[in-house]
């Protein structure tokens, strides 16, 4: 079984967001880049499948030099090989899906694991788009995955519960929190990764779907009001305010 794991590098949530001079992108100055947390679940799942029934795991990221960190980490965690697809991996999920589809098309992957969404951009789009471009089924927001002989059975989160999706392999599966507990890289893994190389490929040209024309900071929330008095007084003045001022009730 051959598994592709797509890993996206994203700005750390703690990053203070500053808009660049162009008014439409993130000022990269103070950004700390991390692997999107959902992608860690995707990678962990791939490694567990490899440990369970045997598989070749290929980690892939679309981006520039900086994504090598993500790929090295994937190698240290147990990926067999890593591919850096040189291209813009941030601006548009549709373009990224085209690049990954062009790479994956003839490689015979049985399973493609993605994160449910790339933190920050929060598109939650690349996986389903990739599945469509490859003409394979998808299952998204997955908290449990079982593989059969050429089939999958996955539990996906929906409003108020979950549902079971079944389909055939190859397929694209997008990982949600709860799928597994990602491990940390072992010293042995880190040493072994040092000996592996990252294959670098120029991404195929892609057509853009969307572009960001302006990035703005949200307006400051007006200062709030604290309720005075003992708990009973606080409670009744809060409800009164919610009723009369906020008109929530």
């Amino acid at each position, binding site marked *: 079984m051959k598994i592709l794991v797509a890993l996206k590098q994203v*700005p750390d*949530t703690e990053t203070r*967001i500053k808009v660049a001079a162009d008014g439409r992108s*993130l000022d990269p100055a103070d950004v700390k880049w991390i692997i999107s947390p*959902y992608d860690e679940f995707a990678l962990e799942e791939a490694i567990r499948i490899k440990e369970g029934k045997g598989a070749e795991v290929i980690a892939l990221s679309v981006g520039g030099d900086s994504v090598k960190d993500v790929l090295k980490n994937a190698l240290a965690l147990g990926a067999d090989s890593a591919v850096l697809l040189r291209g813009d991996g941030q601006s548009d*999920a*549709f373009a990224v*899906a085209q690049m990954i589809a062009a790479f994956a098309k003839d490689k015979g992957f049985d399973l493609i694991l993605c994160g449910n969404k790339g933190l920050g951009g*929060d*598109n*939650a*789009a690349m996986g*389903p*788009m990739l*599945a*469509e*471009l490859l003409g394979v*089924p*998808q*299952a*998204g*927001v997955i*908290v449990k995955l079982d593989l059969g002989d050429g089939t999958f059975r996955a*539990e996906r*989160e*929906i*409003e*108020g*519960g*979950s*549902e*079971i*999706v*079944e*389909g055939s392999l190859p*397929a694209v599966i997008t990982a949600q*929190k709860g799928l597994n507990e990602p491990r940390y890289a072992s010293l042995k893994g880190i040493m072994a990764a040092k000996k592996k190389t990252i294959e670098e490929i120029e991404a195929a040209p892609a*057509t853009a*779907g*969307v*572009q*960001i*024309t*302006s*990035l*703005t*900071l*949200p307006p400051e*929330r007006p200062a*709030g*009001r*604290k*309720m005075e008095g003992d*708990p009973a007084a*606080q*409670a009744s003045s809060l*409800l009164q305010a919610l009723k009369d001022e*906020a008109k*929530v*009730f």
Partner: protein
Amino acid sequence: MILVFCELKEGLLRKPSAEALSEGRRLADASGKRLGALFAGASCAGAAEAAKYGADVILTAEAPTLASYSSDAYAAVLADAVKAKGATVLLAAATAVGKDVAPRAAARLGAGYASDVTGLSMVDGKLQAVRPVYAGKAFATTTFATAVQVATTRPNVFPAAEKSGAGAVESLPAPSGDFKSVVKEILAKASGKVDLSEANIIVSGGRGMKDGANFKILEELADAIGGVVGASRAAVDAGWGLPHSMQVGQTGKVVSPTLYIACGISGAIQHIAGMSGSKFIVAINKDSEAPIFKLASYGIVGDLFEVVPELTKAAKAMGIGQA
């Protein structure tokens, strides 16, 4: 035409779909286009309700193969309808199904896609979207480079406004092809309450709740004021038996209720990422310096175990939630 993919639940139009339709109506009026509501299923009984939200035409794709949700089959239905009607804008609500099917349909149409948008407008005949990014710390105005434009609308953000439309029903042929995935069964949680992502009032508890059993006082408050209960990740991960589906935040649900009451939640950025779109935020925390107060429209500095029961009592006394 502006086409809105709509979902039915037990024969009734889902609220997020009504919201998407209303927004579609507004955009159609602004750009002189017609509004189509699109339904798929084994039966689309109930689809006529879309006329209440301004649909000029109601398109129904009915086939046994569409009885359960299948991402590939449904994406084909959406893309086929867009092509058949020459629609330029395709909207769906950002629900579990909407978020799954819309990007797939977009790829099938070679179209750009903006997900979970909180603002839409038509500029020179093309869709423009505003979406929160970077944990709600910024808003991205997004334009489309493609002839067809696809977006999902965040539930609870766009008002569902009634406006009657002609609502002429037209049936579409079932999608053809060999579809490779299907939903086999639904494992619903026992509670019949609305999902957090659609709730109008949310009462959330954090690590300050100290134990899962204590969430009972939040349930009581929520019941009194017509809300549902959520939680911070610290509470969900504490091993108190709270399901992940309750988690609000960056790695949980993104919610946009009218009222969000945070009890014993400090206000970490990852939590705020999930609830900063709430219209009114109430913080109940014993630490007056907790960051959540910076966001709160109303704050109560105090012990939640004293304040929450008082709120429930006062809500009942005032007859709130009885209307």
